[in-house]
């Protein structure tokens, strides 16, 4: 072999082959480093080349296609303390009907995704209601108004703030000149101190302007009652922790009163039979309320009979007897008589430890009577605390004055700042007609509604999570509202607009709030930053001493017919709907699809009537009735509700919106609106209830979507249900409990059970939960909280009718006993995380398996959707995505904004996949990481599930069962705890605590 001469002795070589320059090496060299490009493009003719080039240039010029230009601005230096993807929590406040609810909002990278209660709030103590829980959905509602618009003959014309300002500026100068002549402002009432200050500024600047405040669910009668009793309108709140005997008269004390969140907690704390003396709750009401369902004794009376009942009670308490006390008519017989007598005896002995609460739909004289009775019983200052009211106390009159001014043509310019009076003003005022006479009508609203369409300008309003503000809590505590996010669109708050009107300049809203604070609690030493952090100003609870009852407190003005046990005609009762409130939440899908706590009705309201009334009228479920009262009429579907008073029809307000949106309906866009507009029958003279209505069947029927069947059921089903419910939802009386504290566990006998499989050994944590049925009121806050936390979609009325609702947590409601006077039992039902889960065994692809900590995990991306797991689940708590219920998020560009509200820690499930409660596994993991970093176990109470957090009564306890010191372990092994369907040997990780009722032995 010929050797290649080396060019230089020092030339380095890499291998012997190279050194020797073998043919193999040359071939290798050739392959590796070819002299010529082997993939050289084929030769192209010059002309062809030019053709191609020419075409490319032409096409490049012609096309508009290019990459979307976008800028990325990463943090070159990250703001201090800011970790991307790590949630932060801010305290703020949501004001609803003049009551500030303390919130703690979770924010991911600057966008709020979950609302929870503020545990530092002294009154609500971390609780929330359904409206606060559902607020996130509103924030990212694609139908929010995005810019100011002119409304020209019902047509929307896009404008801007600049245009509006140019429109308003000359007008403002004229108004400043004439003192506000011809200007009117209508707001929703608010307890905000900053707002109160602005209102004063406004009055000073424009003294001749009309300033009205109104909302349909006002408490005019409450304040009027206080005025009759004390000579001036007073606000008050209750202290249920001191109340042994509570009487609610047409009053939904645990849900609908300003202080309900706190009341529910105090009430529940006094229910546990383990500690001391449980309280006793009496409820007298016309329709079944949440409070009525929780009552130890409940009497269904028409609303008009409540006054006579209270008169008789007062008579008996003050020592009168029989007819002298007013025991006649319906009170002279049967249950009502026994009820009032027993109650009088008990209240009489519970001096200073009793409470009589009257609902806002009762007339003022009943309120006055209740004040007098509370005063006589020494409850003032003990269970009842007074203060000066912050909100407008006669809103109906305030609105009435505005309407007559408008109708007379005295108003040239009207600003409606939030509120929807065209829809919800009393029917007799005919707000719409009067409003139409005003030349310039400006409406600041969150989204387009009935009033917007009747206006000439529609201005977008900011969400409360986007704006500064403040409010008073139910006990008068000063709450601060800080924005979580800059307004997503060009929108303004009511506070800003009120400041703008006289000035013509947009204010710094933060400064308005700060100024109010500095004048108020700031002046007495409260720290702004600390208060802002906590969301409440410490020690700012306002209060008065015990006011003196005026000697002559209001007369008794019940109509004589009220004493008759059967009404002439039918009584109509108006009150808030527990889901859409006064109608303002009608476009919120979570609330629309929320099953009503008692009727389990979704996507509708209905006329609730008693079974006996329905039978007499020949009405069955879903029949459309025509209800006539005072020359007005309404067609509405009937719902037969056990426990409704006879001859009384409850009409929930807030449905049948004409212009609300895709969810709440829109007449203009041809979207059917859920429910029926019951405002059509509500007049300013009878805001609470009206007598003498006529009811006829129209012959039509309306399909009502209930998530649970109503009480009408075949005989076999009824018997089977009774037997099963007895076993599932356990409870007893205090007497039974004292005889055998473990009676609930002893109620059913389970044979010795053996497992088919080798059971898991749990060495580490064992997550578990207890639900105290004695505390649970069925308020639904947990259901919405779960929906918000876990990205649960809504499915719409049609799918609810098909039985495909998706809420992971449901509240099972059963009636017991006489349909006219039933006992209501409720049971929150969700995945029981069975240790020997029947679902896991049957899944052919092992998509649902057990974690080491005992969670029954659902692996969405493994699930193929055989649905066998759900069949084998005895609780039927698994939910299946029959369709892609998130389709809009995927495909509708308008809904891109709605994606922002989704919890980034939870997968959005695709169609064909099973899902269910996970015990908020993402929250467990969120707690696990810091614990691991700090090298310690997760502390008890560190993981709080969404349902537990939302619960106003603290009925849900979650934690590690393996930790003997944990709250849940104690509760799990308490006397009252039992597990459902234990005989199936599924070993649920949820234990229920039996509900102990505390009936008056006299009433049995």
């Amino acid at each position, binding site marked *: 072999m010929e050797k290649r001469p080396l060019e230089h002795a020092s030339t380095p070589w890499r291998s012997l082959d190279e050194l020797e320059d073998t043919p193999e090496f040359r071939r290798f060299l050739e392959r590796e480093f070819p002299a010529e490009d082997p993939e050289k493009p084929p030769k192209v003719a010059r002309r062809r080349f030019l053709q191609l080039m020419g075409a490319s240039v032409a096409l490049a010029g012609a096309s508009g296609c290019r990459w979307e230009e976008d800028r990325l601005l990463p943090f070159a230096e990250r703001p201090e303390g800011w970790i991307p993807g790590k949630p932060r929590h801010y305290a703020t406040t949501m004001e609803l009907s003049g009551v500030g609810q303390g919130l703690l909002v979770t924010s991911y990278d600057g966008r709020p995704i979950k609302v929870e209660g503020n545990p530092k709030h002294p009154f609500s103590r971390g609780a929330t209601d359904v409206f606060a829980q559902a607020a996130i959905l509103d924030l990212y509602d694609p139908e929010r108004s995005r810019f100011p618009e002119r409304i020209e003959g019902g047509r929307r014309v896009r404008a801007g703030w600049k245009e509006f300002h140019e429109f308003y500026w000359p007008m403002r100068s004229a108004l400043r000149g004439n003192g506000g002549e011809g200007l009117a402002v209508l707001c929703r009432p608010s307890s905000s101190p900053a707002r109160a200050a602005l209102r004063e500024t406004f009055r000073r600047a424009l003294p001749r302007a009309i300033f009205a405040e109104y909302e349909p669910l006002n408490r005019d009668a409450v304040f009027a009652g206080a005025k009759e009793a004390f000579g001036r309108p007073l606000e008050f709140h209750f202290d249920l922790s001191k109340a042994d005997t509570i009487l609610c008269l047409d009053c939904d004390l645990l849900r609908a009163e300003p202080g309900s969140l706190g009341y529910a907690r105090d009430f529940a704390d006094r229910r546990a039979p383990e500690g001391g003396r449980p309280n006793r709750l009496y409820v007298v009401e016309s329709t079944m309320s949440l409070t009525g369902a929780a009552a130890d004794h409940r009497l269904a009376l028409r609303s008009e009979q409540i006054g006579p009942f209270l008169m008789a009670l007062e008579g008996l308490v003050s020592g009168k007897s029989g007819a002298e006390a007013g025991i006649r008519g319906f009170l002279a017989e049967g249950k009502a008589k026994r009820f009032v007598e027993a109650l009088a005896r008990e209240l009489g002995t519970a001096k200073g430890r009793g409470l009589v609460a009257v609902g806002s739909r009762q007339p003022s004289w009943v309120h006055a009577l209740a004040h007098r009775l509370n005063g006589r019983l020494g409850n003032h200052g003990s269970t009842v605390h007074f203060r000066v009211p912050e909100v407008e106390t006669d809103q109906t009159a305030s609105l009435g004055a505005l309407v007559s001014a408008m109708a007379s043509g005295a108003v040239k310019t009207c600003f409606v700042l939030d509120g929807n009076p065209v829809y919800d003003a009393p029917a007799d005022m005919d707000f719409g007609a009067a409003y139409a006479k005003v030349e310039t009508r400006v409406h600041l609203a969150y989204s387009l509604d009935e009033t917007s369409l009747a206006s000439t300008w529609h201005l977008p309003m900011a969400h409360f999570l986007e704006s500064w503000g403040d409010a008073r809590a139910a006990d008068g505590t000063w709450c601060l509202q800080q924005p979580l996010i800059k307004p997503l669109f060009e929108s303004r708050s009511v506070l800003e607009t009120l400041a703008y009107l006289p000035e013509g300049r947009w204010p710094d809203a933060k400064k308005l709030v700060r100024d109010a604070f500095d004048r108020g609690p700031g002046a007495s030493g409260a720290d702004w930053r600390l208060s802002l952090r906590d969301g409440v100003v410490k020690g700012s609870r306002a209060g008065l001493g015990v006011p003196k009852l005026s000697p002559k407190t209001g007369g008794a003005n019940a109509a004589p017919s009220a004493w008759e046990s059967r009404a002439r005609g039918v009584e109509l009762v108006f009150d808030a709907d527990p889901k859409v409130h006064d109608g303002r939440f009608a476009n919120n899908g979570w609330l629309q699809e929320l099953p009503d706590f008692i009727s389990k009705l979704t996507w509708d309201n209905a006329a609730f009537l008693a079974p006996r009334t329905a039978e007499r009228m020949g009405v069955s479920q879903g029949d459309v009735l025509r209800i006539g009262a005072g020359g007005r009429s309404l067609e509405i579907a009937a719902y037969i509700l056990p426990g409704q008073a006879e001859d009384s029809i409850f009409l929930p307000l807030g449905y049948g919106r004409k212009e609300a949106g895709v969810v709440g309906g829109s007449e203009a866009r041809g979207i059917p609106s859920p429910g029926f507009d019951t405002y059509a029958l509500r007049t300013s003279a009878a805001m609470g209830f009206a007598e003498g209505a006529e009811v006829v069947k129209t012959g039509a029927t309306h399909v009502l979507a209930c998530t649970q069947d109503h009480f009408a059921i075949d005989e076999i089903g009824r018997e089977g249900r009774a037997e099963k419910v007895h076993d*599932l939802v356990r409870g007893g009386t205090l007497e039974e409990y004292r005889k055998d504290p473990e009676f609930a566990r002893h109620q059913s006998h389970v044979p010795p059970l053996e497992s088919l499989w080798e059971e898991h050994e749990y060495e580490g944590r064992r997550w578990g939960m207890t639900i105290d049925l004695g505390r649970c009121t069925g308020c639904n806050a947990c259901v919405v909280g779960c929906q918000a936390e876990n990205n649960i979609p809504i499915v719409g009325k049609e799918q609810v009718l098909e039985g495909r609702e998706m809420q992971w947590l449901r509240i099972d409601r059963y009636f017991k006993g006489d349909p006219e006077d039933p006992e209501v039992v409720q049971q929150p*039902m969700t995945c029981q995380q069975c240790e020997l889960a029947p679902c896991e065994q049957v899944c*052919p692809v*092992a998509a649902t398996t057990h974690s080491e900590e005992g969670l029954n995990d659902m692996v969405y991306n493994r699930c*193929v*959707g055989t649905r066998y797991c759900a069949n084998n689940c005895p609780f039927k708590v698994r939910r299946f995505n029959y369709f892609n219920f998130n389709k809009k998020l995927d495909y509708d560009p308008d809904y891109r904004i709605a994606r922002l509200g989704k919890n980034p820690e939870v997968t959005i499930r695709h169609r*064909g996949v099973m899902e269910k409660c996970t015990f908020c596994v993402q929250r467990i993991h969120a707690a696990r990481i810091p614990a691991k970093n700090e090298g310690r176990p997760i502390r008890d109470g560190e993981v709080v599930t969404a349902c537990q957090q939302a619960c106003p009564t603290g009925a849900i306890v979650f934690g590690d069962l393996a930790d003997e010191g944990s709250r849940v372990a104690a509760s799990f092994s308490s006397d009252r705890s039992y597990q459902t369907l234990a005989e199936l040997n599924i070993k649920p990780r949820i234990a229920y605590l039996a509900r102990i009722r505390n009936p008056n032995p006299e009433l049995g």
Partner: protein
Amino acid sequence: MSSEITTTAEFLSDDPVKRAPLVDPRLDYHSVTETVSAIAERPKPPKAWYAAFAVALSLTLMLFALIGYLIVEGVGVWGNNNPAFWGFPIVNFVFWVGIGHAGTLISAILFLFRQKWRTSINRFAEAMTIFAVVCAGLFPGIHVGRIWFAYWLFPVPNQMEMWPNFRSPLLWDVFAVGTYATVSLLFWYFGMIPDLATLRDRARSRLSKILYGVFSLGWTGSAREWHRYERSYLILAALATPLVLSVHSVVSFDFAVAQLPGWHTTIFPPYFVAGAIFSGFAMVQTLMVPARRFFGLEKIVTMRHIENMNKVILATGSMVGYAYGIEFFIAWYSGNPNESFVFLNRAFGPYAWAYWIMVSCNVIFPQLFWFKKIRRNLLITMVIVMLVNVGMWFERFVIVVTSLSRDFVPASWGYFKPTAVDLLMLLGSFGLFFTLFLLFLRFLPIVAMAEVKGVMPHDHGPKEKGAPESAGGER
């Protein structure tokens, strides 16, 4: 004896002294071949075939269009809801699997029991089995929420190292039905080879020569081949026999292994097998009675066959009736309130109508078969077997839907209502079944000629035309 016989009825006398011939003794080997082969060899099928095929094919196309719709939209197009997570698709699946039982039973079990009368009907029944299993196999496949991942039910090696859950009865189902379909297909095809060879030998067109030639696998009919063939047939029969019992037992495990009251019952395996045979025979009868008339097979499929099958229907129908009764007894005897509720609810609850349709169709009407006159009346037979088909579909409906719609927690009770898609897909599955069946009638030997010849009295029968002695060989 045969010379005196003039009518079909006469030779079917049940005189125990004489062994009655299994097919009309006037037939000889040649006429059997002619009668059966002629059906497949006609250049054009009769107009009625075209009409029936057009209907069946349109229904099949509709079925596949609906499946497309289902895949695009999601399983919500069916009426399945929250308590009743399973509905029509599973009902249809169990129904068709049940139908698919008769074929293998007739072929395998009756073969092992030397029930020679089976030869005239076994091909028919086996074909029906295959097609029914095709229909059955369709439903679980499209029933899952994410059809594109349905293959995860098979133990396919994958990068996740994820195996199916071997505890799940649905997985057992996959294996049981898969095995059954494979073995039934093999058995059917295997039994058809000699007959395909006959068709090949007689084929005139080139295409049919090639196709029959390929599928007859070079059959020559030599004694050696017959020897091997019959041995293997016996082995296949022995393999298929346990499957007849296992498939529906395993299908019943889908229910019996679950803890749902109304499903969780140990009686299910035998009860399902009896029901399957019952429905399978009814379906064979449904197809056979018109087909024998239509294709002039009365001499091969005689009244005796019809009557025998009616007897099987009577027997299995009574077993099913017994199972219905014993379920009630056990529900009461067990003292389990959930159990007793479910059965009372079936009979008197919201689905009582379905329950009583089931009972009357499956238990009451077949009792008429105690009467010989009715067993031999084709019209009444047809009515009763149709009712049995309906009844057996409802049996599965009652089991699946009533148990699910009302279980442990009353708050989650619901009522299942089928949608139009549900109903049309059920109809479409019949379309698919009949499409396949009509193709079978058109192109394949619908009676097992070789086997029929084997049971003909060839030794001392009349030999009017001098039939070839050696063709079929003796069994």
